[in-house]
């Protein structure tokens, strides 16, 4: 089954391949899995439209390849584990002097329910779950409420995109519907290409697909560097 790839996807793929080779990923894989992995790396687990359309066309769900991310699936567990590494005396709680990073003071105080100057794992877990649950609903809201950032996060609609992937998921589109949507998207892309000038198309592509501005890499202990859609 052939996968039709538009110019934007091709640009993303090519740029992504160059960047990825710097990360030293060389295991053999199919073209489809490479696209999935590039998109996952680029967008930090968020599938953007350009990648989402190509991957849905191939019938592959855009999950990160197994083993790519070694963290637990719930964002809360990962975050708690990350902070509990600061438990220097290993007593299972975090004191203000153990977690002395001023940038985390707000979280510390928010989570310290009983206000006793120490954070237990359960206080931390409860606070982070609460933070996640406060994700607002609505047309611009993320599609993965309650799943935490370990699952694919939200992505805003890209210009020219009819229904971003998270919306397709939210609406529970059938395979047939997704196929028709892909065809509609191809029609829209084609007509838009006739409406816009070459320069305008290039600009739009750059906005969607430009790679990281800074040095690429897996990032340090957190989100992948530069793996974000190009948002102002």
């Amino acid at each position, binding site marked *: 089954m052939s996968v039709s790839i538009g110019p934007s996807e091709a640009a993303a793929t090519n740029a992504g391949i160059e960047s990825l080779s710097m990360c030293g990923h060389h295991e053999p894989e199919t073209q489809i899995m490479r696209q999935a992995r590039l998109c996952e790396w680029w967008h*930090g*687990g*968020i599938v953007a439209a350009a990648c989402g359309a190509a991957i849905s066309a191939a019938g592959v769900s855009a999950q990160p390849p197994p083993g790519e991310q070694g963290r637990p699936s719930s*964002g*809360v567990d*990962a*975050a708690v584990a*990350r*902070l509990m*590494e*600061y438990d*220097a*005396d*290993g007593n299972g709680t975090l004191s203000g002097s*153990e977690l*002395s*990073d*001023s*940038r*985390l003071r*707000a*979280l510390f105080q928010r989570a310290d329910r009983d206000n006793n100057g120490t954070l237990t794992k359960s206080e931390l877990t409860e606070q*982070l779950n609460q*933070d*996640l649950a*406060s*994700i*607002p609903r609505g047309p*611009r*809201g*993320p599609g993965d409420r309650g799943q*935490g*950032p*370990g699952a694919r*996060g*939200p*992505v*805003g609609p890209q210009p020219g995109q009819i229904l971003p992937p998270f919306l397709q998921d939210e609406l529970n589109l059938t395979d047939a519907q997704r196929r028709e949507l892909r065809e509609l998207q191809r029609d829209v892309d084609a007509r838009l290409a006739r409406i816009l000038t070459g320069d305008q198309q290039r*600009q739009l592509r*750059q*906005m969607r697909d*430009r790679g*990281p*501005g*800074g*040095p690429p890499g897996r*990032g*340090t*202990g*957190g*989100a*992948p*560097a*530069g*793996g*974000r*859609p*190009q*948002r*102002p």
Partner: protein
Amino acid sequence: MSGPLLLPGRRRFLGAVGAAFFTTPGLFAEQLLLPSPALTEGPFYPDKLPLDQDNDLILIKDSITPAVGTITHLTGRVLTSTGEPVKNATVEIWQCDANAVYLHTRDSGPNSGKQDRHFQGFGRCTTASSGEYRFRTIKPVPYPGRPSPHIHVKVKRGDRELLTTQIFIRGHEGNLRDGVYAGIRDLIDRELVLADFEPINDSKIGEVQARFDIVLGRTPDEREYRPQ
């Protein structure tokens, strides 16, 4: 203990050798700070740098007309992961003006009617020996497609870029609707890009201050910790 220790990280090393070593003064006293997460540069890093590139974005050169917006004193330190100050690093910030127009031909061209010509849009500062940087700018506002107000930041040494990220307002309702902020998978990383924009009590014009420390995962001359 005998033999070379090949454990990759300080924390795993500590876990392996047990509690006795916590009493060794100075050796493990400092903790590694969490590195500031990198975030997308976005499409509007200025393509033409303004004539005035200082750290005061409210006033351009000799102009006496300030930019529109809530005056914000943005300060912080650039640190290594071991907490040491990074001096002589260049910190750059850029953001849209109070009318949500960026200083970039692709944005200010089409939107020239709305652009606040008194807003510098971009600023640069060199860190002091304490690692401190400071800017005077406006409190960021939302931008179409970006419900979360933010300030772009870039840290460089010479031509070499060390980090590109963004500063968000703690508690702003737009954060969780924003594709970039809510796309930060790690919940702790989300904390690390937040700053409190707090009113300055003495200010008669409603100025605010924001403190944002930047921790670099790697610096050009940082020596890697190696177990003895």
